[in-house]
Protein backbone atom coordinates (compact mmCIF):
# COMPACT_ATOMS: atom_id res chain seq x y z
CA UNK A 1 0.00 0.00 0.00
CA UNK A 2 1.42 3.36 -0.89
CA UNK A 3 1.92 6.23 1.49
CA UNK A 4 -1.00 8.09 -0.04
CA UNK A 5 -3.25 5.11 0.65
CA UNK A 6 -2.40 4.99 4.35
CA UNK A 7 -3.01 8.73 4.61
CA UNK A 8 -6.44 8.15 3.12
CA UNK A 9 -7.18 5.38 5.56
CA UNK A 10 -6.00 7.44 8.45
CA UNK A 11 -8.35 10.26 7.69
CA UNK A 12 -11.31 7.95 7.22
CA UNK A 13 -10.51 6.10 10.44
CA UNK A 14 -10.22 9.27 12.50
CA UNK A 15 -13.57 10.52 11.25
CA UNK A 16 -15.23 7.24 12.17
CA UNK A 17 -13.41 6.85 15.47
CA UNK A 18 -14.35 10.34 16.61
CA UNK A 19 -18.00 9.24 16.60
CA UNK A 20 -17.43 6.49 19.16
CA UNK A 21 -14.42 7.85 21.05
CA UNK A 22 -14.36 8.78 24.72
CA UNK A 23 -12.40 11.89 25.71
CA UNK A 24 -9.36 11.81 27.99
CA UNK A 25 -9.33 13.45 31.43
CA UNK A 26 -6.39 15.70 30.45
CA UNK A 27 -6.21 15.77 26.67
CA UNK A 28 -9.96 15.82 26.05
CA UNK A 29 -10.55 15.38 22.30
CA UNK A 30 -6.93 15.79 21.27
CA UNK A 31 -6.53 12.29 19.85
CA UNK A 32 -2.96 12.92 18.83
CA UNK A 33 -1.96 12.89 22.50
CA UNK A 34 -3.47 9.60 23.64
CA UNK A 35 -5.02 6.33 22.51
CA UNK A 36 -8.70 6.86 23.14
CA UNK A 37 -11.26 4.59 24.66
CA UNK A 38 -14.30 3.86 22.50
CA UNK A 39 -17.84 2.58 22.82
CA UNK A 40 -17.74 -1.18 23.04
CA UNK A 41 -14.29 -1.61 24.58
CA UNK A 42 -16.00 -3.63 27.34
CA UNK A 43 -16.95 -6.28 24.77
CA UNK A 44 -13.31 -6.44 23.71
CA UNK A 45 -12.04 -6.99 27.22
CA UNK A 46 -14.68 -9.66 27.88
CA UNK A 47 -13.10 -11.68 25.10
CA UNK A 48 -9.48 -10.92 25.94
CA UNK A 49 -9.87 -12.27 29.48
CA UNK A 50 -11.00 -15.60 28.05
CA UNK A 51 -7.97 -16.07 25.80
CA UNK A 52 -5.76 -19.09 26.41
CA UNK A 53 -2.72 -16.84 26.61
CA UNK A 54 -4.27 -15.46 29.77
CA UNK A 55 -6.16 -18.35 31.32
CA UNK A 56 -3.41 -20.87 30.60
CA UNK A 57 -0.47 -18.58 31.16
CA UNK A 58 0.93 -20.59 34.07
CA UNK A 59 3.57 -18.49 35.77
CA UNK A 60 4.17 -16.36 32.70
CA UNK A 61 3.27 -12.68 32.82
CA UNK A 62 0.93 -10.17 31.22
CA UNK A 63 1.92 -6.83 29.70
CA UNK A 64 -0.48 -3.98 28.93
CA UNK A 65 0.00 -0.55 27.42
CA UNK A 66 -1.39 2.59 29.14
CA UNK A 67 -4.05 3.13 26.47
CA UNK A 68 -7.47 4.33 27.53
CA UNK A 69 -9.26 1.59 25.58
CA UNK A 70 -7.61 -0.95 27.89
CA UNK A 71 -8.93 0.55 31.12
CA UNK A 72 -11.81 -1.87 31.31
CA UNK A 73 -9.47 -4.78 30.58
CA UNK A 74 -7.22 -3.65 33.41
CA UNK A 75 -10.24 -3.54 35.70
CA UNK A 76 -11.22 -7.10 34.75
CA UNK A 77 -7.68 -8.35 35.26
CA UNK A 78 -7.45 -6.71 38.68
CA UNK A 79 -10.84 -8.14 39.69
CA UNK A 80 -9.58 -11.60 38.70
CA UNK A 81 -6.41 -11.12 40.69
CA UNK A 82 -4.23 -11.10 37.57
CA UNK A 83 -1.11 -8.98 38.08
CA UNK A 84 0.38 -7.19 35.11
CA UNK A 85 3.21 -5.01 33.90
CA UNK A 86 2.45 -1.67 32.27
CA UNK A 87 4.48 1.27 31.08
CA UNK A 88 3.72 4.79 32.22
CA UNK A 89 2.36 7.28 29.72
CA UNK A 90 4.99 7.84 27.02
CA UNK A 91 7.24 5.26 28.79
CA UNK A 92 8.59 8.33 30.60
CA UNK A 93 8.86 6.60 33.94
CA UNK A 94 9.46 3.19 32.41
CA UNK A 95 7.80 -0.03 33.49
CA UNK A 96 5.56 -0.54 36.51
CA UNK A 97 4.15 -3.72 37.98
CA UNK A 98 0.75 -3.96 39.61
CA UNK A 99 0.18 -6.70 42.14
CA UNK A 100 -3.56 -7.15 41.78
CA UNK A 101 -3.88 -9.19 44.95
CA UNK A 102 -2.90 -6.10 46.94
CA UNK A 103 -5.71 -3.88 45.69
CA UNK A 104 -8.73 -3.55 47.99
CA UNK A 105 -11.95 -4.48 46.19
CA UNK A 106 -13.27 -0.94 46.57
CA UNK A 107 -10.37 0.42 44.53
CA UNK A 108 -10.38 -1.93 41.54
CA UNK A 109 -11.90 0.60 39.17
CA UNK A 110 -9.57 3.30 40.41
CA UNK A 111 -6.44 1.17 40.08
CA UNK A 112 -7.42 0.44 36.47
CA UNK A 113 -7.14 4.13 35.51
CA UNK A 114 -3.83 5.81 34.81
CA UNK A 115 -4.36 8.05 37.87
CA UNK A 116 -5.02 5.12 40.16
CA UNK A 117 -2.41 2.81 38.67
CA UNK A 118 0.21 5.32 39.71
CA UNK A 119 -0.91 4.96 43.32
CA UNK A 120 -0.77 1.21 43.48
CA UNK A 121 1.83 0.01 41.01
CA UNK A 122 5.53 -0.26 41.80
CA UNK A 123 8.27 0.77 39.42
CA UNK A 124 10.39 -2.09 38.12
CA UNK A 125 13.80 -1.55 36.62
CA UNK A 126 14.67 -3.48 33.48
CA UNK A 127 17.09 -5.49 35.55
CA UNK A 128 14.30 -6.52 37.93
CA UNK A 129 12.02 -7.15 34.99
CA UNK A 130 14.38 -9.55 33.24
CA UNK A 131 14.71 -11.69 36.35
CA UNK A 132 11.03 -12.61 36.07
CA UNK A 133 9.22 -14.99 33.71
CA UNK A 134 8.59 -14.16 30.05
CA UNK A 135 5.34 -12.67 28.82
CA UNK A 136 2.49 -14.87 27.76
CA UNK A 137 0.13 -12.09 26.72
CA UNK A 138 0.84 -8.55 25.55
CA UNK A 139 -2.10 -6.25 24.89
CA UNK A 140 -2.01 -2.89 23.18
CA UNK A 141 -4.60 -0.59 21.68
CA UNK A 142 -5.03 2.08 19.16
CA UNK A 143 -3.66 2.88 15.72
CA UNK A 144 -5.08 1.12 12.75
CA UNK A 145 -4.34 -2.48 11.95
CA UNK A 146 -4.18 -4.36 8.64
CA UNK A 147 -5.46 -7.85 7.87
CA UNK A 148 -1.95 -9.26 8.25
CA UNK A 149 -1.64 -7.70 11.69
CA UNK A 150 0.54 -4.71 10.88
CA UNK A 151 -0.30 -1.65 12.93
CA UNK A 152 0.00 1.76 11.37
CA UNK A 153 -0.89 5.36 12.10
CA UNK A 154 -0.24 7.51 15.11
CA UNK A 155 0.77 5.93 18.36
CA UNK A 156 1.92 2.50 17.26
CA UNK A 157 5.59 3.30 17.82
CA UNK A 158 5.40 3.02 21.58
CA UNK A 159 4.26 -0.57 21.66
CA UNK A 160 6.76 -1.54 18.98
CA UNK A 161 9.44 -0.09 21.19
CA UNK A 162 8.14 -1.78 24.35
CA UNK A 163 8.10 -5.07 22.49
CA UNK A 164 11.67 -4.44 21.36
CA UNK A 165 12.82 -3.71 24.92
CA UNK A 166 11.08 -6.79 26.35
CA UNK A 167 12.55 -8.90 23.54
CA UNK A 168 16.04 -7.60 24.21
CA UNK A 169 15.57 -8.70 27.81
CA UNK A 170 14.59 -12.17 26.62
CA UNK A 171 11.03 -11.78 27.87
CA UNK A 172 9.20 -12.57 24.63
CA UNK A 173 9.29 -15.80 22.68
CA UNK A 174 7.42 -17.84 20.06
CA UNK A 175 4.52 -18.47 22.39
CA UNK A 176 4.00 -14.83 23.35
CA UNK A 177 0.63 -13.66 22.08
CA UNK A 178 0.17 -10.05 20.96
CA UNK A 179 -3.35 -8.61 20.96
CA UNK A 180 -4.46 -5.29 19.49
CA UNK A 181 -7.73 -3.93 20.92
CA UNK A 182 -9.35 -1.59 18.41
CA UNK A 183 -12.71 -0.41 17.25
CA UNK A 184 -14.06 -2.07 14.10
CA UNK A 185 -13.40 1.11 12.16
CA UNK A 186 -9.67 0.76 12.89
CA UNK A 187 -9.40 -2.60 11.14
CA UNK A 188 -8.35 -2.28 7.51
CA UNK A 189 -8.98 -5.36 5.43
CA UNK A 190 -5.86 -5.09 3.34
CA UNK A 191 -2.35 -6.53 3.47
CA UNK A 192 0.31 -4.03 4.46
CA UNK A 193 4.06 -4.45 4.31
CA UNK A 194 5.75 -4.51 7.70
CA UNK A 195 8.90 -2.61 8.49
CA UNK A 196 11.60 -4.39 10.45
CA UNK A 197 10.67 -2.73 13.75
CA UNK A 198 6.92 -3.35 13.40
CA UNK A 199 5.33 -5.96 15.65
CA UNK A 200 2.72 -7.90 13.75
CA UNK A 201 -0.14 -8.88 16.07
CA UNK A 202 -1.67 -12.32 16.60
CA UNK A 203 -5.15 -11.07 17.38
CA UNK A 204 -7.21 -8.07 16.50
CA UNK A 205 -10.05 -7.77 19.00
CA UNK A 206 -12.92 -5.40 18.21
CA UNK A 207 -16.28 -4.96 19.96
CA UNK A 208 -17.89 -7.31 17.44
CA UNK A 209 -15.23 -9.90 16.61
CA UNK A 210 -11.83 -11.42 17.26
CA UNK A 211 -9.60 -11.94 14.25
CA UNK A 212 -6.73 -14.40 14.49
CA UNK A 213 -3.70 -13.77 12.29
CA UNK A 214 -0.99 -16.37 11.85
CA UNK A 215 2.35 -14.97 13.00
CA UNK A 216 4.39 -18.16 13.27
CA UNK A 217 7.20 -16.54 11.27
CA UNK A 218 7.41 -13.48 13.51
CA UNK A 219 10.96 -12.73 14.59
CA UNK A 220 11.92 -11.74 18.09
CA UNK A 221 12.02 -7.97 18.47
CA UNK A 222 15.13 -5.91 18.88
CA UNK A 223 16.06 -2.31 19.47
CA UNK A 224 17.57 -0.73 16.39
CA UNK A 225 19.85 1.66 18.20
CA UNK A 226 20.72 3.73 15.18
CA UNK A 227 17.04 4.63 14.83
CA UNK A 228 16.65 5.95 18.38
CA UNK A 229 18.45 9.31 18.32
CA UNK A 230 16.12 12.14 17.42
CA UNK A 231 12.98 10.23 18.47
CA UNK A 232 10.79 10.62 21.55
CA UNK A 233 12.59 7.57 22.99
CA UNK A 234 16.00 9.14 22.99
CA UNK A 235 15.86 10.57 26.49
CA UNK A 236 14.03 7.80 28.27
CA UNK A 237 15.61 6.33 31.36
CA UNK A 238 14.76 2.85 30.16
CA UNK A 239 16.75 3.40 26.98
CA UNK A 240 19.77 4.33 29.02
CA UNK A 241 19.26 1.36 31.28
CA UNK A 242 18.77 -1.03 28.38
CA UNK A 243 21.98 0.14 26.81
CA UNK A 244 23.82 -0.38 30.05
CA UNK A 245 22.32 -3.82 30.55
CA UNK A 246 22.68 -5.23 27.08
CA UNK A 247 25.63 -3.43 25.59
CA UNK A 248 27.91 -2.80 28.50
CA UNK A 249 27.43 -6.26 29.99
CA UNK A 250 27.35 -4.89 33.50
CA UNK A 251 27.16 -7.46 36.29
Amino acid at each position, binding site marked *: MSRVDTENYRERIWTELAKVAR*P*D*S*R*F*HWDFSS*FICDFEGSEECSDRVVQMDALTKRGDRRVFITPDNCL*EDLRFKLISRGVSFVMT*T*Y*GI*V*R*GFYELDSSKIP*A*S*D*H*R*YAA*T*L*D*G*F*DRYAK*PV*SLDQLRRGSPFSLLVTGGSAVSSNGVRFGKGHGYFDFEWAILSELGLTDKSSVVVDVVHDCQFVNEVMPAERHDVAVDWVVTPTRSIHIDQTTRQRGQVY*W*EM*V*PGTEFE*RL*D*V*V*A*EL*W*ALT*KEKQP
Partner: protein
Amino acid sequence: MDSDHDVAPLLVGPLTFCRYSYRRIWSKVPGVDARREKAGDQPLYSRVRHELTDMVLRRALDDTSPLPPEPRLMEIFAVSRGTLRRAIDDLVREGLLSAEQGRGTFVKQEERLRRVVWERLKHVAIPDSRFDRDLREFVPDFFGSEEATRRVMSLEEWTSASRVFCAPDNSVERLRYEALSAGKNVLVPTYGLRRGFIHLNGSVLSRSDLRHAASLDGMESYGVVLGPGDLRRFGNVDLIVTGATAATSDGRHIGGGQRYLALEWAMMEQLGLVSTAVPVVALVHECQLVEEVVEADHDCLIDYIATNSRVIHVWGSTGSASNEAPRSLRRIV
Protein backbone atom coordinates in the same frame (compact mmCIF):
# COMPACT_ATOMS: atom_id res chain seq x y z
CA MET B 1 19.88 23.30 30.85
CA ASP B 2 22.68 21.65 28.93
CA SER B 3 21.13 19.18 26.51
CA ASP B 4 23.66 16.54 27.51
CA HIS B 5 23.22 16.76 31.25
CA ASP B 6 22.97 13.66 33.36
CA VAL B 7 19.55 12.24 34.02
CA ALA B 8 18.45 14.05 37.13
CA PRO B 9 15.08 12.69 38.18
CA LEU B 10 12.66 15.15 39.65
CA LEU B 11 11.85 12.81 42.46
CA VAL B 12 13.96 11.40 45.14
CA GLY B 13 12.90 8.38 47.13
CA PRO B 14 10.59 5.62 46.01
CA LEU B 15 9.96 6.92 42.54
CA THR B 16 13.54 6.99 41.42
CA PHE B 17 15.49 3.97 40.42
CA CYS B 18 17.51 4.75 37.36
CA ARG B 19 20.39 7.09 36.87
CA TYR B 20 22.34 6.90 33.68
CA SER B 21 24.13 9.50 31.69
CA TYR B 22 22.96 10.33 28.20
CA ARG B 23 26.41 11.32 27.27
CA ARG B 24 27.68 7.92 28.27
CA ILE B 25 25.07 6.15 26.19
CA TRP B 26 25.12 8.10 23.04
CA SER B 27 28.84 8.48 22.86
CA LYS B 28 28.92 4.76 22.29
CA VAL B 29 26.26 4.43 19.62
CA PRO B 30 27.98 4.30 16.23
CA GLY B 31 27.59 7.42 14.16
CA VAL B 32 25.90 9.38 16.90
CA ASP B 33 28.77 10.92 18.85
CA ALA B 34 29.40 13.76 16.47
CA ARG B 35 25.78 14.87 16.49
CA ARG B 36 25.55 14.80 20.27
CA GLU B 37 28.76 16.70 20.77
CA LYS B 38 27.45 19.40 18.53
CA ALA B 39 24.18 19.62 20.42
CA GLY B 40 26.16 20.19 23.61
CA ASP B 41 27.69 23.25 22.10
CA GLN B 42 25.02 25.72 23.11
CA PRO B 43 24.64 29.04 21.34
CA LEU B 44 25.74 32.22 23.07
CA TYR B 45 22.27 33.72 23.49
CA SER B 46 21.16 30.56 25.27
CA ARG B 47 24.01 30.93 27.77
CA VAL B 48 22.93 34.52 28.40
CA ARG B 49 19.34 33.37 28.83
CA HIS B 50 20.41 30.85 31.47
CA GLU B 51 22.58 33.32 33.32
CA LEU B 52 19.89 35.96 33.28
CA THR B 53 17.32 33.44 34.55
CA ASP B 54 19.70 32.49 37.29
CA MET B 55 20.11 36.12 38.30
CA VAL B 56 16.36 36.60 38.44
CA LEU B 57 15.86 33.52 40.61
CA ARG B 58 18.67 34.51 42.95
CA ARG B 59 17.04 37.93 43.17
CA ALA B 60 20.21 39.54 41.98
CA LEU B 61 17.92 41.75 39.93
CA ASP B 62 15.36 44.00 41.54
CA ASP B 63 11.75 43.03 40.85
CA THR B 64 10.36 46.50 41.05
CA SER B 65 12.69 48.51 38.88
CA PRO B 66 13.56 47.84 35.25
CA LEU B 67 16.53 45.74 34.18
CA PRO B 68 19.80 47.66 33.82
CA PRO B 69 20.20 49.40 30.47
CA GLU B 70 21.34 47.37 27.47
CA PRO B 71 24.94 48.65 27.35
CA ARG B 72 25.40 47.62 30.99
CA LEU B 73 23.95 44.15 30.37
CA MET B 74 26.07 43.74 27.23
CA GLU B 75 29.05 44.46 29.40
CA ILE B 76 28.00 42.04 32.16
CA PHE B 77 27.49 39.15 29.76
CA ALA B 78 30.16 40.25 27.29
CA VAL B 79 27.87 39.82 24.31
CA SER B 80 26.59 41.90 21.42
CA ARG B 81 23.30 43.79 21.45
CA GLY B 82 21.73 41.24 19.09
CA THR B 83 22.61 38.29 21.31
CA LEU B 84 21.36 40.06 24.42
CA ARG B 85 18.07 41.00 22.78
CA ARG B 86 17.53 37.47 21.61
CA ALA B 87 18.00 36.15 25.14
CA ILE B 88 15.65 38.77 26.59
CA ASP B 89 13.05 38.10 23.91
CA ASP B 90 13.14 34.44 24.85
CA LEU B 91 12.53 35.21 28.52
CA VAL B 92 9.71 37.59 27.64
CA ARG B 93 8.12 34.81 25.64
CA GLU B 94 8.55 32.43 28.58
CA GLY B 95 6.84 34.96 30.83
CA LEU B 96 9.73 35.56 33.21
CA LEU B 97 10.30 39.09 31.95
CA SER B 98 7.91 41.64 30.59
CA ALA B 99 8.84 44.39 28.22
CA GLU B 100 6.86 47.52 28.90
CA GLN B 101 6.74 50.21 26.29
CA GLY B 102 8.70 53.26 27.36
CA ARG B 103 9.42 51.91 30.85
CA GLY B 104 11.90 49.13 30.29
CA THR B 105 12.06 45.41 30.94
CA PHE B 106 10.82 44.07 34.26
CA VAL B 107 10.98 40.79 36.14
CA LYS B 108 7.56 39.19 36.48
CA GLN B 109 7.36 38.47 40.19
CA GLU B 110 4.68 35.88 39.81
CA GLU B 111 6.63 33.84 37.30
CA ARG B 112 9.78 34.19 39.39
CA LEU B 113 7.94 32.75 42.39
CA ARG B 114 6.58 29.93 40.28
CA ARG B 115 10.07 28.95 39.22
CA VAL B 116 11.40 29.16 42.75
CA VAL B 117 8.59 26.99 44.08
CA TRP B 118 8.85 24.49 41.20
CA GLU B 119 12.46 24.02 42.11
CA ARG B 120 11.52 23.26 45.73
CA LEU B 121 8.60 21.07 44.72
CA LYS B 122 10.91 18.69 42.89
CA HIS B 123 11.68 17.02 46.17
CA VAL B 124 8.11 16.35 47.26
CA ALA B 125 5.98 16.39 44.12
CA ILE B 126 4.34 13.28 42.73
CA PRO B 127 4.31 13.03 38.92
CA ASP B 128 1.07 13.22 36.96
CA SER B 129 -0.20 10.16 35.14
CA ARG B 130 0.09 12.02 31.82
CA PHE B 131 2.22 15.12 32.26
CA ASP B 132 4.75 13.36 34.44
CA ARG B 133 7.08 16.03 35.86
CA ASP B 134 6.06 18.94 33.70
CA LEU B 135 4.79 21.23 36.44
CA ARG B 136 3.72 23.83 33.91
CA GLU B 137 0.86 21.55 32.97
CA PHE B 138 -0.57 20.59 36.34
CA VAL B 139 -0.58 21.18 40.08
CA PRO B 140 1.02 18.09 41.58
CA ASP B 141 0.08 16.00 44.55
CA PHE B 142 2.85 15.88 47.14
CA PHE B 143 4.21 13.79 49.97
CA GLY B 144 2.31 15.09 52.98
CA SER B 145 -0.99 15.91 51.24
CA GLU B 146 -2.72 13.50 53.64
CA GLU B 147 -1.82 15.74 56.55
CA ALA B 148 -2.83 18.85 54.65
CA THR B 149 -6.14 17.20 53.79
CA ARG B 150 -6.73 16.36 57.44
CA ARG B 151 -6.06 19.98 58.33
CA VAL B 152 -8.67 21.20 55.86
CA MET B 153 -11.09 18.74 57.42
CA SER B 154 -10.42 20.16 60.86
CA LEU B 155 -11.85 23.53 59.83
CA GLU B 156 -15.32 24.35 60.98
CA GLU B 157 -16.05 25.62 57.47
CA TRP B 158 -15.46 22.10 56.18
CA THR B 159 -17.79 20.43 58.64
CA SER B 160 -20.64 22.80 57.90
CA ALA B 161 -20.21 22.81 54.11
CA SER B 162 -22.55 20.66 52.10
CA ARG B 163 -21.54 21.93 48.66
CA VAL B 164 -17.83 22.17 47.97
CA PHE B 165 -15.99 23.44 44.95
CA CYS B 166 -12.76 21.48 44.46
CA ALA B 167 -10.10 22.36 41.94
CA PRO B 168 -9.03 19.59 39.55
CA ASP B 169 -5.54 19.70 41.06
CA ASN B 170 -3.85 16.43 41.91
CA SER B 171 -3.15 17.63 45.45
CA VAL B 172 -6.91 17.95 46.01
CA GLU B 173 -7.77 14.41 44.90
CA ARG B 174 -7.72 13.05 48.43
CA LEU B 175 -9.88 15.89 49.69
CA ARG B 176 -12.39 15.25 46.90
CA TYR B 177 -12.53 11.67 48.12
CA GLU B 178 -13.13 12.81 51.69
CA ALA B 179 -15.84 15.21 50.57
CA LEU B 180 -17.63 12.44 48.70
CA SER B 181 -17.19 10.07 51.64
CA ALA B 182 -18.86 12.65 53.87
CA GLY B 183 -21.79 12.74 51.45
CA LYS B 184 -21.12 16.27 50.28
CA ASN B 185 -21.89 17.62 46.83
CA VAL B 186 -18.70 18.34 44.94
CA LEU B 187 -18.18 20.58 41.95
CA VAL B 188 -14.99 19.94 39.96
CA PRO B 189 -14.02 21.73 36.76
CA THR B 190 -12.71 19.42 34.04
CA TYR B 191 -9.00 19.85 33.46
CA GLY B 192 -8.42 23.22 31.85
CA LEU B 193 -12.18 23.84 32.05
CA ARG B 194 -12.39 22.42 28.56
CA ARG B 195 -15.53 20.38 29.04
CA GLY B 196 -17.33 22.28 31.76
CA PHE B 197 -17.80 21.24 35.39
CA ILE B 198 -18.61 17.87 36.91
CA HIS B 199 -21.16 17.67 39.71
CA LEU B 200 -20.63 14.67 41.99
CA ASN B 201 -23.07 13.83 44.75
CA GLY B 202 -21.32 11.85 47.46
CA SER B 203 -24.54 10.81 49.14
CA VAL B 204 -25.72 8.72 46.19
CA LEU B 205 -22.39 7.10 45.27
CA SER B 206 -21.57 3.62 46.40
CA ARG B 207 -18.66 3.26 48.81
CA SER B 208 -16.62 1.28 46.29
CA ASP B 209 -16.87 4.00 43.65
CA LEU B 210 -15.58 6.87 45.77
CA ARG B 211 -11.87 6.61 44.96
CA HIS B 212 -12.58 6.33 41.28
CA ALA B 213 -15.06 9.21 41.37
CA ALA B 214 -12.54 11.44 43.15
CA SER B 215 -9.93 11.04 40.40
CA LEU B 216 -9.86 13.04 37.18
CA ASP B 217 -9.89 9.79 35.24
CA GLY B 218 -12.98 8.50 36.97
CA MET B 219 -15.13 11.49 37.88
CA GLU B 220 -16.95 11.66 34.58
CA SER B 221 -18.30 8.15 35.01
CA TYR B 222 -20.27 9.23 38.08
CA GLY B 223 -20.98 12.91 37.77
CA VAL B 224 -23.27 15.14 35.79
CA VAL B 225 -21.59 17.52 33.35
CA LEU B 226 -22.61 21.13 33.90
CA GLY B 227 -21.83 23.82 31.36
CA PRO B 228 -22.06 27.54 32.06
CA GLY B 229 -25.72 27.33 31.07
CA ASP B 230 -26.71 24.91 33.82
CA LEU B 231 -24.03 25.51 36.43
CA ARG B 232 -26.65 27.20 38.60
CA ARG B 233 -28.23 23.79 39.18
CA PHE B 234 -25.39 22.96 41.56
CA GLY B 235 -26.64 25.51 44.07
CA ASN B 236 -24.69 27.80 46.32
CA VAL B 237 -21.09 26.86 47.02
CA ASP B 238 -20.23 26.75 50.74
CA LEU B 239 -16.50 26.22 50.48
CA ILE B 240 -13.75 26.42 47.88
CA VAL B 241 -10.69 24.21 48.09
CA THR B 242 -7.88 24.59 45.64
CA GLY B 243 -4.31 23.56 45.11
CA ALA B 244 -1.79 26.14 43.95
CA THR B 245 1.63 26.50 42.50
CA ALA B 246 2.36 28.93 45.31
CA ALA B 247 0.43 30.67 48.07
CA THR B 248 1.70 33.87 49.60
CA SER B 249 1.40 34.70 53.28
CA ASP B 250 -0.79 37.66 52.35
CA GLY B 251 -3.35 35.37 50.78
CA ARG B 252 -2.55 35.37 47.11
CA HIS B 253 -3.15 32.27 45.08
CA ILE B 254 -0.57 31.77 42.38
CA GLY B 255 -1.69 29.18 39.91
CA GLY B 256 -0.03 27.64 36.91
CA GLY B 257 -0.34 30.86 34.97
CA GLN B 258 -3.59 30.24 33.08
CA ARG B 259 -5.76 31.79 35.80
CA TYR B 260 -8.31 29.01 35.77
CA LEU B 261 -9.33 29.61 39.37
CA ALA B 262 -10.01 33.28 38.68
CA LEU B 263 -12.05 32.33 35.64
CA GLU B 264 -14.01 29.69 37.54
CA TRP B 265 -14.60 32.13 40.38
CA ALA B 266 -15.86 34.74 37.99
CA MET B 267 -18.24 32.32 36.31
CA MET B 268 -19.65 31.17 39.62
CA GLU B 269 -19.92 34.70 40.91
CA GLN B 270 -21.81 35.84 37.83
CA LEU B 271 -24.24 32.99 38.30
CA GLY B 272 -24.64 33.79 41.98
CA LEU B 273 -23.08 30.54 43.22
CA VAL B 274 -20.42 32.27 45.25
CA SER B 275 -19.99 35.56 47.04
CA THR B 276 -16.95 37.05 48.69
CA ALA B 277 -18.18 35.50 51.95
CA VAL B 278 -17.40 31.97 50.73
CA PRO B 279 -14.19 30.76 52.38
CA VAL B 280 -11.33 29.78 50.10
CA VAL B 281 -8.80 27.21 51.28
CA ALA B 282 -5.51 26.51 49.55
CA LEU B 283 -4.14 23.03 50.12
CA VAL B 284 -0.39 23.18 49.55
CA HIS B 285 2.92 21.82 50.72
CA GLU B 286 4.86 23.94 53.18
CA CYS B 287 7.45 24.57 50.46
CA GLN B 288 4.80 26.25 48.32
CA LEU B 289 4.30 28.95 50.91
CA VAL B 290 5.93 32.21 50.01
CA GLU B 291 6.58 34.84 52.65
CA GLU B 292 6.43 37.75 50.28
CA VAL B 293 4.04 40.47 49.41
CA VAL B 294 3.48 40.02 45.73
CA GLU B 295 2.41 42.58 43.22
CA ALA B 296 0.61 39.82 41.40
CA ASP B 297 -2.10 40.24 38.85
CA HIS B 298 -5.47 39.78 40.42
CA ASP B 299 -6.46 36.30 41.37
CA CYS B 300 -8.65 34.61 43.90
CA LEU B 301 -7.74 35.57 47.46
CA ILE B 302 -7.27 32.84 50.03
CA ASP B 303 -8.68 32.73 53.58
CA TYR B 304 -6.88 29.63 54.83
CA ILE B 305 -3.69 27.92 53.79
CA ALA B 306 -3.57 24.28 54.88
CA THR B 307 -0.17 22.66 54.57
CA ASN B 308 1.35 19.38 55.68
CA SER B 309 2.31 20.98 58.97
CA ARG B 310 -0.18 23.74 59.83
CA VAL B 311 -3.19 25.84 58.99
CA ILE B 312 -2.71 29.53 58.43
CA HIS B 313 -5.66 31.81 58.84
CA VAL B 314 -4.56 34.54 56.48
CA TRP B 315 -6.83 37.21 57.89
CA GLY B 316 -6.01 36.37 61.47
CA SER B 317 -8.59 36.72 64.18
CA THR B 318 -10.34 39.57 62.45
CA GLY B 319 -12.49 37.00 60.69
CA SER B 320 -12.98 36.22 57.06
CA ALA B 321 -11.52 38.24 54.27
CA SER B 322 -14.99 39.13 53.15
CA ASN B 323 -14.93 42.51 54.84
CA GLU B 324 -11.52 43.39 53.61
CA ALA B 325 -10.98 45.60 50.66
CA PRO B 326 -8.59 43.27 48.83
CA ARG B 327 -11.43 40.78 48.37
CA SER B 328 -12.72 42.93 45.59
CA LEU B 329 -9.71 41.81 43.63
CA ARG B 330 -11.54 38.61 42.95
CA ARG B 331 -12.19 39.14 39.33
CA ILE B 332 -10.72 38.32 36.00
CA VAL B 333 -8.18 40.66 34.61
